[in-house]
């Protein structure tokens, strides 16, 4: 039953994704869609480690920025995008592994963990921000401080630096990447590793007493989340064709957390929906000039927490269940999950 369920879920995911990728460009410009997809991936990266691993990271933006900067710097030096893309995944993962090992073997938890990740993000932000001088150079790439790095080689067909992938094709590349990442996350959560991660989220001491090396497993999960964030960062760099220290900013980190909560923590879809939805909302808001946009964004957040605290996806799921009556499935693990987070 388990294998069959998994197969069907993959199939459903693929069909829904294909439909969305086909239909969405009819409604929203692909350029905007691309960044929504990228933010979705970024949201998923935190949704994975926080929603399923219980690691509240205030600095997911650090890995996003690190991915983007790694890509930009490597692309300037190499002039072809394949290796920079790989580096943009590996460097944040490695950085997260070191940072994670430092934190988790030090038995830091909840709010203290939050502060460390926040502080590390601030350090990166301040460092990158103060690299305007000509002495800050990595190979050919000037770090550029506050103004960031423009003008690097953007994504090309692997092996052919002149065959750029941009515009509509770039949207399809990003969308397919997101689907792949989503399926990988699904697979990961179904695997023993994922189930153990959820166990750790629920009760670290118990899992340690069962003989699991909690610190090591959290470190690995943290690094996986960072790798996904790094990939999102590299895709973002390609999309914007410029990287700036803002990617590392506290505001960016906070936004990722907000995406997860608004979308629904503890679900895979929630953070993606939250990210894409809120980013699109921001995009729409910028087209009006009646009321201060900061004010509107703030109000929406407050109302959300007060009236829809579980997030969109669980709320919609609950609504659907109540409309269509009892689910035809027997009380399966899937339903359990909803109960738990709903």
């Amino acid at each position, binding site marked *: 039953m388990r294998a069959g369920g998994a197969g069907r879920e993959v199939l459903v995911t693929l069909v829904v994704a294909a439909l969305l990728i086909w239909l969405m460009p009819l409604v929203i410009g692909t350029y905007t869609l691309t960044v929504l997809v990228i933010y979705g991936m970024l949201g998923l990266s935190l949704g994975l480690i926080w929603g399923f691993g219980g690691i509240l990271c205030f600095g997911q933006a650090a890995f996003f920025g690190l991915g983007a900067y790694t890509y930009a710097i490597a692309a300037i030096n190499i002039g072809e995008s394949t290796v920079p893309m790989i580096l943009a995944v590996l460097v944040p993962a490695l950085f997260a592994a070191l940072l994670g090992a430092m934190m988790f073997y030090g*038995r830091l938890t*909840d709010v*203290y963990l*939050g502060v460390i990740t*926040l502080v590390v993000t601030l350090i990166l932000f*301040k460092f990158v921000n103060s690299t305007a001088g000509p002495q800050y150079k990595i190979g050919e790439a000037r770090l550029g401080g506050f103004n960031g790095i423009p003008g690097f080689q953007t994504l090309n067909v692997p092996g052919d630096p002149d065959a750029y992938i941009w515009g509509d094709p770039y949207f399809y590349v990003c969308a397919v990447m997101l689907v792949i990442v989503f399926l990988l996350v699904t697979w990961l959560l179904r695997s023993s590793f994922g189930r153990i991660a959820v166990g750790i989220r629920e009760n670290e001491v118990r899992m340690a007493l069962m003989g699991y090396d909690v610190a090591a497993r959290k470190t690995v999960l943290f690094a996986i989340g960072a790798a996904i964030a790094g990939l999102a960062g590299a895709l973002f760099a390609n999309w914007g064709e410029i990287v700036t220290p803002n990617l590392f900013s506290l505001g960016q980190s906070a936004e990722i957390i907000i995406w997860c909560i608004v979308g629904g923590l503890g679900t895979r879809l929630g953070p993606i929906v939250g990210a894409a939805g809120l980013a699109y909302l921001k995009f729409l808001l910028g087209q009006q000039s009646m009321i201060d946009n900061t*004010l509107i*964004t703030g109000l929406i957040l407050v109302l959300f927490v007060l009236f829809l605290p579980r997030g969109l996806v669980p709320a919609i799921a609950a609504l659907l269940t109540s409309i269509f009556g009892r689910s035809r499935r027997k009380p399966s693990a899937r339903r359990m999950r909803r109960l738990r987070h709903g």
Partner: protein
Amino acid sequence: MDLTFVILVEMLYAVASLVLISAGLAVVFGMMKVINLAHGEFMMMGGYATITAVNLGVNVFVAMLVIAPLVVGLIGLVVERLVIRHLYGRLVDTMLATWGLSLVFIGLATMIFGNTTTGISTPIPGFAVGGYQINGYNFFIIVVSILLVIGIYAVLRGTRAGLIARGTMQRADMAAALGYSPDRIYMATFFCGSALSGLAGAVLAPLVGLVPTSGGAYIAKAFITVIAGGPSLIAGLVSSATSFGVISQIFTFAISPVIGEVALLIAAVVLLRTMPQGITGRFFKGKL
């Protein structure tokens, strides 16, 4: 010699201003386990309240020390009743809600005050120490934060409200069991915390260029100071503000302000790594 004195004053000032900007957050976090991400905006509003009062002809010290804390405390009270009280015990949700509130306040301040508000000058003149001019107002800030710490201590130690507060900090359910409504305790706490934030914003207003987005500059520092301090309110606040203030000033003078800030942040990482429960989680256990 003169320079040594100047550096000493700057260090004291750095510690004092950290205490000042963190006190409001520390009270709210220590008592209610609520992280108020609108703390910086409460400070910003304290600044605007002061400027407005001064422009209306109120004495600047009255404006800073009385009006601003009252105004911001009342705003805090409204916020607590409308939003926070629905979210007790949900750390992350309160953070999200207060983040939203901070944006609302920025928006409101922009609509009301615009983004060019003439500030107020420091009411205390600078003076000379040997060959150096120093900011006389620094001493005022140092004095205010010392009084603030003594004041919090006196309230917690010497009053009935303080006793209840200490009980709540140890075990929130105990106070309820003793017949004190947690609702009212939380309301009072949030009022006090907001008032302290307002006070900090007011006192610092003559030293900074006040714009609606000013609050963002404080929240991270205050947050780090409070968490690094650990569970004990006063001992935690003072010890972490002292460590961070001194370290950042040493590096600021020796190298540059950026390195000073980075040194502060690195100190925070090292500190939390070696003392995962904050300074007072390890030392000063059970103290205030």
